[in-house]
């Protein structure tokens, strides 16, 4: 039987506010346990929540960036359940009236086609604390520093049909939230994480299969792996005549397996009801327009501009706009190079990205600044150096040996364009390799490359390749 996979994602983006969603405690990552948990975060008797203005602004921003409806009136509700990392015994979330309603998002698939994924809603809620299982015999330690950190939970429609599509969608959301600066996107620190609802059904069947919810997917790679594992598991169960059980499963990256979460097994009855400590959040058109004015150019628009303004391919444009930092870097390179967009694109997505990956560095930590790279590309364009020599220059810049001009100067890498000097080398090579000259003249065109190589070698790579080619062609004609 042929199976169709159905995936919906619930992405949790921690909002990059300074203070928590309902208290004035800091949200900074990595503090000593429970030093950033104030009376409100601890749920002490008598404390009350007051909503953070910035969290609301950020939610509006997301709504606008994804063409979603921003609700003029939204309501906070309590989701009641007992868990030690949930101090109040309820999570303040949104149920019936979320702050962001329906929206749509285009993602590009591997074959280059575009797919539209529906966003069901995005709502504000508070994060829970953390349970630490190590170090205490038979006990669990609870750190509530994270409790009360604002989250935007972005719920998609079950529109994805493969793990790859799910990853593409998640990457798109990641790029949007980081572009609009509402989330730092740091997946290792858990600032951006997701749960996946996965089910399978026979191809052509309308009705959805029973789904499982995969938790703890904190990298793009894990999302893809966990979904594929889960799809395989479900298909095997059904093909063996079994039934998929609706449950929550935890992905264990070390063992690369998913397992049922015993603690969440019982049917949950969250008893949602409007939180009487909070009033309806009202957002008027004026506020929405003010937020809209602060929106930066978004990935899709930027991508389009890169293709039209710089003549880049869709692929290059997408790679270069995958993060705002990358796009900004690229644009600075183009400017510094004197408008060499194509060359800049190749260098940024090629050597630069390769070197960053090799050294595990983010683009804003690059030892070669955008201005430096642009300056080097300018020297390629004005024939000061060849593309080949440029690789040497780039490497030297990466090692901190100064900017392109300094490296070219100190290493004597300036390209030889003096036709007299080149002619001298060419003549010498021809004179010393008569056998190859004969071969070439008798029709073996391939030997031409041999001559180019010899000349370049003799010039230590500095001879202008175009001039060498032209001169060799003329002289070899005889």
């Amino acid at each position, binding site marked *: 039987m042929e199976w169709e996979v159905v995936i919906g994602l619930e992405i949790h983006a921690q909002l990059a506010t300074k203070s928590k969603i309902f208290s004035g405690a800091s949200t900074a990552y990595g503090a000593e346990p429970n030093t950033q948990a104030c009376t409100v975060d601890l749920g002490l008797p008598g404390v009350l929540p007051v909503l953070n203005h910035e969290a609301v602004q950020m939610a509006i921003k997301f709504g606008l960036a994804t063409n979603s409806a921003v609700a003029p009136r939204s309501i906070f509700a309590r989701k009641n359940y007992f868990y030690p990392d949930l101090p*109040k015994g309820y999570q303040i979330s949104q149920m019936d009236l979320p702050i962001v309603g329906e929206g749509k998002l285009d993602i590009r698939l591997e074959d280059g086609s575009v797919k539209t994924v529906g966003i069901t809603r995005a709502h504000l809620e508070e994060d829970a604390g953390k349970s630490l299982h190590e170090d205490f015999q038979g006990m669990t330690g609870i750190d509530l520093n994270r409790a009360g950190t604002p989250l935007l939970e972005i719920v998609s429609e079950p529109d994805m049909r493969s793990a790859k599509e799910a990853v593409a969608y998640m990457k798109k959301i990641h790029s949007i939230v980081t572009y609009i600066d509402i989330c730092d996107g740091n997946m290792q620190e858990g600032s951006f994480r997701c749960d996946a609802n996965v089910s399978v059904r026979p191809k052509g069947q309308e009705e959805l299969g029973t789904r499982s919810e995969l938790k703890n997917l904190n990298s793009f790679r894990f999302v893809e792996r966990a979904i594929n594992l889960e799809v395989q598991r479900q298909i095997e169960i059904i093909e063996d005549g079994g039934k998929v059980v609706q449950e929550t499963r935890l992905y264990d990256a070390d063992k690369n397996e998913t397992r049922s979460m015993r603690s969440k097994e019982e049917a949950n009855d969250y008893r949602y009801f409007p939180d009487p400590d909070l009033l309806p959040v009202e957002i008027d058109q004026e506020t929405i327009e003010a937020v809209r004015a602060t929106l930066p150019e978004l990935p899709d628009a930027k991508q389009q501009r890169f293709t039209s303004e710089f003549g880049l391919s869709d692929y290059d444009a997408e790679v270069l706009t995958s993060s705002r930092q990358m796009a900004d870097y690229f644009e600075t390179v183009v400017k510094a190079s004197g408008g060499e967009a194509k060359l800049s694109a190749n260098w940024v997505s090629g050597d630069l990205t390769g070197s960053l990956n090799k050294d595990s560095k983010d683009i804003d930590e690059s030892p070669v600044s955008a201005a430096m790279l642009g300056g080097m590309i300018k020297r390629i364009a004005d024939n000061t150096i060849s593309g080949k020599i440029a690789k040497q220059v780039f490497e030297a810049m990466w090692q901190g040996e100064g900017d392109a001009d300094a490296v070219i100067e100190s290493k004597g890498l300036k390209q030889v364009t003096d036709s007299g000097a080149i002619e001298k080398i060419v003549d010498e090579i021809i004179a010393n390799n008569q056998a190859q000259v004969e071969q070439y003249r008798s029709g073996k065109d391939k030997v031409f490359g041999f001559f180019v190589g010899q000349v370049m070698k003799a010039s230590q790579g500095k001879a202008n390749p175009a001039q060498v080619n032209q001169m060799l062609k003329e002289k070899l004609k005889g």
Partner: protein
Amino acid sequence: MHNKTLSELSAALKAGEFSSTELTQRYLSRIAEFDSQINAYITVSEKQALAAARAADVQIAAGTAGPLTGIPLAQKDIFCTQGVKTSCGSKMLDNFISPYNATVIEHFNQAGSVMLGKTNMDEFAMGSSNETSFYGAVKNPWNTDKVPGGSSGGSAAAVAARLAPASTGTDTGGSIRQPASLCGITGLKPTYGRVSRYGMIAFASSLDQAGPMTRTAEDAALMLNCMAGFDQRDSTSVEREVPDYTANLSDSLEGLTIGLPKEYFGEGLDASVGKAVEDAIAEYKKLGATVKEISLPNTHLAVPTYYVVAPAECSSNLSRFDGVRFGYRCDDPVDLEDLYKRSRGEGFGSEVKRRIMIGAYALSAGYYDAYYIKAQQMRQLISDDFKRAFEEVDVIMGPTAPETAFGIGDKSDDPITMYLSDIYTIAANLAGLPGMSVPAGFVNDMPVGLQIIGNYFDEARLLNVAHRYQQVTDWHQRAPAQFK
């Protein structure tokens, strides 16, 4: 000096008749002498009280004293008080020393008043007789075989027995007004949002409101001046100017229209209590008020509505008492579920457990619409009844409670009968309106309270209406013989 009202004490302190330290010592010794008879206090904070009194005396001497500087007060044990046990009448919080102050407590501290201690109350404010307290029942100073009402029973009894000149209470379904009525004192529940709820341990968040419990309306005005006001920390607190509630106390009542809801004088009302209330209304006519019969047709559904809304909110509000970060934890839990269930099962008393379960049930899947949403719709209807009434009248009057104080143990086995003691007070909480109870006579030597309900934020008028009545009557001046 303990028979003086709060305003008289304030004047005497300023005049140097006695010091705050002397006054505080007098109350502390009265508490030591009498409280064993009525059990009004859970905690007496003697050391802190005397320190605060000395600080107040310095201020009084320096001439920087305000109206409440140096005035000893009793605080309901529902308000978090930094460094002083805050039990909420529950075993669950028997070991809870609050690390912070409620906003109301901060206000009193800034005013320089002196906290004598924390008063007894029904556990988590759930009760109408003060019998559900972990610390034992409070007894009515007028007859110690009878209940003082609840949940602010300790606060009411302390004022009635002259163990504090004034106290604070909280009112979710009548918990200020009903004990005020049963103990023969004055109690005011302000408009929802008028007084900050921050640091006041929540029972039902959309109904809870703190207010003063005093001997006179004038004292209540002084107290409310200090308690009311906007609080950044409470999203439901109203950003609205606080008037001087003492300014209009003596305004004439000429032209005042009093609404008498026929539903408040029907079946279930003790005839003698009804007579006392009618006598009080006759006094108002003499003061120039006119009376109009009105109807609040959904009155009989206020109690059923309340017993969905309040338990639903409390079931969630009380989830934080889980034995993890503060409060009672059971011995040797075998696992997490055991920790939760036994800490809560052992830490809460049976009335609290009943209400938590009713609330959890009303919110659970499949019942939410039939109970919770239905109750919210009823709440709207009850609120609309008042809205219509206030188009015709300035205040609404009736009995605070259907009868005078009942005997200890008389109703404690029958929750429903107990719940109906709040039949006249609950509707004001559902609507969020301010209400008062004012001493209005005695039946068989037990006090009767007149309830006055006002429109939103009309506390000044309520206090004016109550004050004028107290100028022509002396019910509020009477004290139980053994505590004079």
